[in-house]
């Protein structure tokens, strides 16, 4: 993690704390370096809170147990930033004035940058085609009018970010803005505007991401990143789940370093491990400890041996795209980057595809393509769009050799990669890639492009192109490091990782579930 000027808040549910070895939590603490830890309510979990306070080396708070100053308390996050912690909606209802006061307290050096309340959540009633905000009336009574107040809640997943405009008198919903990351303005002086952001677990393929890391500065939350406790400590190692981690901890093996000191024969005797599993644990632990990738099989890298592949990445207007508005290609042979971007006519998906295909088939008829998780996203949509919009290129597109480095390494189990998650930026970062730091993700570029289509408001094109280029170059960095990695020493050990441990790090399964995921 890079050093930060603001504060970093780690939010985690009680389940992520209970039942985990202390060393896993220590690894979370050491890796994420939070300035404060928020153990999510709304259920009162005293045991989990005690454990949190013991295992984390930073101030911790648990809203249901924050009773010092009445219904609202102020929690310092570091860097002079504070949040107002509300015990519950009930507490808010009982004394809205306390919250108003806490938010406008001038005695303090700063006003809180957000309100924390874990039972703020949404309730959907499909029979009425209606989603309501629990606590809307209470928030309207307590929060100031005419400006936007951020409310953070563990009651919603960490990808939730909506701006609710509430009537000050009643809490009735006036409107909801869906892209506060693009535009976040109050709706009027008689209106309470609440930007509700989730910090709770996000469900994905192969489990949920239960940890949320919030970067905050004086403007509020700048980014929310997620991962899972299983990405830390021993559990980050392939083949070690909570049960095995517990058994190992009983034998005082609690860190990856200790794991590496434990002989393979000994590890193999643990239930369900076996020799192959033990060897793989050792290898993966080594990869994670050294940040050196390791190839597990004698299998060539996709495209290895010929000219290196072209590294490809696409940007779309959503997970179910209607246009592939940017196609970026990095050519490692001459270190050049080429972007095909639709800036003029977003209603027509064909031109950008056509110029990409013209260029590809004319200039690089013999080159293979490389992507990160392309089978589930880039190739899937390119194939479908080429067939529909430039059908005369369909056969040629079909015949281009296409490789998916993620698929090869993770799903097929040919290599072990470092990094806390399988996201390209995590893996590349662990392998020493220093990105451009555009601060964007796929979801943001999609939303920005949609706004361009709707309103004509131009994107910061350079920034969005830099984002795409960064991914292409990061992909090449990973490929290049894998190319130089040692192959499996033991030729008999060519079996790909077995199904249950197929993914060395957290986000398993691999289907793209969010535009920021890969």
């Amino acid at each position, binding site marked *: 993690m890079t050093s930060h000027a603001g504060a970093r808040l780690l939010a985690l549910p009680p389940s992520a704390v209970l039942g985990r070895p202390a060393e896993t939590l220590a690894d979370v603490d050491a890796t994420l370096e939070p300035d404060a830890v928020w153990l999510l309510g709304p259920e009162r979990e005293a045991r989990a809170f005690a454990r949190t306070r013991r295992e984390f080396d930073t101030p911790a708070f648990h809203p249901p147990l924050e009773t010092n100053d009445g219904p609202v308390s102020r929690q310092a996050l570091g860097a002079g930033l504070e949040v107002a912690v509300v015990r519950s909606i009930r507490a808010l209802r009982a004394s809205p004035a306390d919250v108003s006061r806490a938010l406008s307290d001038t005695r303090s050096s700063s006003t809180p940058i957000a309100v924390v309340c874990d039972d703020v959540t949404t309730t959907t009633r499909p*029979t009425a085609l209606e989603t309501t905000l629990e606590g809307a009336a209470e928030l309207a009574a307590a929060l100031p009018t005419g400006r936007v107040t951020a409310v953070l809640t563990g009651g*919603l997943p960490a990808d939730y970010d909506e701006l609710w405009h509430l009537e000050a008198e009643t809490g009735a919903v006036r409107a909801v803005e869906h892209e506060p990351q693009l535009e976040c303005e109050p709706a009027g002086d008689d209106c309470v505007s609440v930007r509700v952001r989730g910090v709770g677990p996000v469900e994905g393929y192969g489990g949920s991401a239960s940890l949320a890391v919030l970067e905050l500065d004086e403007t509020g939350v700048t980014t929310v990143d997620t991962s899972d406790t299983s990405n830390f400590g021993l559990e980050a190692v392939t083949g070690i789940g909570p049960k095995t981690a517990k058994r190992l901890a009983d034998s005082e093996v609690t860190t990856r370093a200790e794991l590496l000191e434990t002989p393979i024969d000994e590890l193999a005797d643990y239930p369900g491990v076996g020799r192959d599993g033990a060897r793989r644990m050792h290898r993966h632990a080594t990869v994670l400890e050294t940040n050196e990738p390791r190839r597990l099989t004698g299998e060539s890298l996709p495209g290895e041996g010929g000219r290196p592949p072209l590294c490809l990445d696409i940007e779309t207007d959503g997970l179910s795209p*209607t246009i592939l508005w940017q196609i970026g290609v990095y050519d490692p042979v001459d270190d050049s980057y080429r972007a095909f971007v639709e800036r003029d006519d977003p209603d027509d998906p064909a031109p950008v595809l056509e110029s990409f295909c013209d260029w590809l088939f004319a200039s690089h008829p013999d080159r293979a393509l490389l992507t990160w998780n392309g089978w589930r996203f880039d190739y899937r949509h390119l194939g479908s769009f080429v067939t529909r919009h430039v059908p005369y290129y369909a056969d040629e597109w079909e015949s281009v050799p296409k490789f998916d480095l993620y698929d090869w390494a993770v799903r097929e189990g040919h290599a072990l990669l470092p990094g806390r998650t399988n996201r390209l930026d995590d893996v590349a970062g662990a392998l020493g890639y220093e990105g451009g730091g555009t601060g964007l993700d796929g979801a943001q570029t999609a939303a920005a492009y949609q706004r361009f289509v709707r309103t004509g408001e131009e994107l910061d094109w350079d920034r969005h192109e830099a984002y795409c280029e960064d991914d292409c170059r990061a992909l090449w960095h990973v490929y290049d490091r894998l190319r130089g990695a040692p192959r499996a020493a033991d030729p008999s050990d060519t079996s790909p990782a077995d199904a249950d441990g197929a993914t060395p790090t957290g986000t398993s399964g691999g289907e793209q579930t969010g535009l920021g995921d890969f």
Partner: protein
Amino acid sequence: MNTDDTADEDAIGPADGNRGDVPITGDELLETFPRYRDDEDVSVLEIPGREASTVPNDEVLRPELAGPLEQDLYAHQAEALAALERDENVCVATSTSSGKTRIYALEIARNVLEARARGERSTAYVLYPTKALSRDQERELNDFFEQLGLDISVRVYDGDTDPGETRRQIREEADVIISNFAGVNTYLHDHDRWARFLSSCELVVIDESHTYTGVHGMHVAWVLRRLKRVLEYYGADPQFALTSATIGNPGEHSSALIDEPVTVVDEDGSPAGPRELVLWNPPARARADGADSDSTTTGGSEDEADDAVVDRVPASVEAPKLLSHLCYHDAQTLLFTPSRKLSELSIRRASTHRRDRSRYYTNPDRGSEIEPYHAGHSRTKRHGTEHRLKTGALDGVASTNALELGINVGEMDATVQLGYPGQRQSFWQQIGRAGRGTKRALSVLVAGHRTLDQYVANNPDYLLETDVEDAVVDVDNDAVFARHLLCAADELALEEADTGAFAGRERLEGAVEMWRRAGRLAGHLETGVSYVGPPRPQGSISLYATSGEEYVVELADGVDERHDPEMEPLAEERVLRDFHEGAIRLHEGQQYEVVGVDHDSPRPTVTLRPTDADCYTRTRTDVTVLDAVPEESREIGDFALHFGRGRVLVYHGTYDRVDVDSGDPKEQGIPTENPPLSIETQLCWLEVPDRVERALVERYREFSLEDEDGDGDGNEPAATAHLGYAGGLHAAEHATIGVAPLELMVDKRDLGGLATLSIDSHLERERGENGTTGERAPRNVAAAEATVREIADGLEHEPKSGWFIYDGIDGGLGFSRAIYENFEAVAERARELIADCDCGRVDGCPACVMDDQCGNDNQPLHREAAVDVLDRLLGNEDREALEAPAETEPGGDRRPPLFYS
């Protein structure tokens, strides 16, 4: 297998043409059956036969197809093929074995030949309701194409298909893919993998389409709408061919399913011999032999636990005797039983009957090859039985409705039905199994004790009326729509183009906004809305529930798997009512006790254990209706009928254990530990005019209840002048719900009702000044009832009385709307049922107005008052006949706000 079997499912002509004319007639059956019977218990109806109407093949088909076909096309086959040629969608609603499969098989062949001539491909997606039918039809279609000398590959692709390479190969190569709707729902997620198949798709076949009604039907309708979006994306615009049993509204039903106009072909051109239909009410059982009653025979189906005072031999005992008897007389016979267990048991009882009457059946081996058939048997065993039936090696089979849908077993001489199958549509489909070409056929219906059975037995004309039930499928349920919208957005971005095509603008925008606020969708309709929630929303669609919350039924640990009831997943509403912990359910003839219910896990479950108890359980239910808002209204005479939406609070709070034999409660008021259930649903309600009410209150003011139920639950019928009239409303409410299945393909278990003296207090009120706060809805039934009484007390005018009928499923099913539209027909049946019942009791019997789901323990009920109400509604009596007292006398007793569910 009979590999040279050239007949497809519906081919004409007997599999073996050697049998003589009908081996036994209806009259002969009556003469020969060994036991005295009362003439009044049996009626024999004659249904005339029908000549074949055919069209020469070469008038309809190209020579390659016309040539190899051995028989000419029936007129309806030709008509359907002509309509398909005109690019129309068709629904073929003709009898069993009338050659419906052949229509779409020939259309597929035609499409493939034409496409190949152009150097292109043509594919077809063929969807069956069951996996068993899919496998059967895969064989039939492959055989048929082989017979035509065509290289068309037909493959099944469903949950049983090997994953990986096999699936890829089928998607890439098959011309015809057979699947089911659960499969389509799942596979749409990966439509890019199906691009080749979908982009060439020219025909979608929906076989047995009449089975898609109720909750399941509306899911199917939405899966089809999603499929159509994806097909359109790939440039395909296929036609739809639906095949249906005879139903009342094939065109309307098909159009509702596929959201396109449909041409109905229902003039059956296949030949049929004359048929004798014997309605057989079993003889009275000698009072003394009550001991011989068998606990497994008291309930025909899973949910019918009769507590009637039974004095006839049960159908489950009588029907196997008829099976045995008919087989003895050389008639190959199919017995339809309502459960797997009864199909097994019937075989035993058939042979017991032979032995018991050995003096009569002198040759014990004659016609004794009889076997059971049901989905619990292995596939191999079932195929063996099907084959042996087809070739005549079997004399008879006792089957569940597994043989009702189109599996090819050839044609029988006779059918016997153990109990009325509940629907005319199903009744005709089953008896259609008998009839070899134009020879005479015999069908016997053995009536059970249930309301519907006795109605049919006493009203033989009912079966012969031309009307068949309407199939109800409804796409207005927003809960179901909203779930499929998430899937649609996951499959392809939702766009402007979806307004109108997928849903009306207001509804689409409303649902998108709802899901955006919930963080499940992102983007705008102008530019594309994508799904951003947890992966694979298709996986959360339950095709049998509206909320997506469905409960998987599991066996308790350690119970032998062969006891697995293999039940469909259950909707939450049914779990709360029928599958609370401690409930004893009869499913396919086996008793199960619910030993656990997990409401909270991500995968809710109901755990069962087989049991053998001498009791069943009956849930006590408190219901009230709140905030009903009329959307449509009409007048029937001076009655007002409304349809609309509202909230129904249902609390299945306690249950009773009831003795199977006596129907007496053994233990009462056991708590279910259930949470209360609040559903937003569709309702219809009838308002009785003041004049009628006043007259009937007056007429029945002497009515009172014996004070035997002092259970102190606060809702005892108070002694009041209104009680008799209220009992009439309550009885009429039970009866209208009870007979609804006679007119409509609705499931009574999905309907509920509430009779009330104060309809107005169940309607939505004008919003008060502080009416906008979030928590205005009472959280439990007691509070809701208190609210209703409070509103009643506060009303400034005298409220209307009447009764509500509601859909018992969140969001509604379209059932109460169908009842709204067909109310007169339903009321007419209800009146007949009550008036004609010979129970002779004021408060009726389980065959007329008592209902074992009644939340008020069937009190008060008043048959005569109910008939009076219905007569006024139907205009059966002169206005003068009823002398209404003058307007409410000032200071007269205010009516109590009574209501009964």
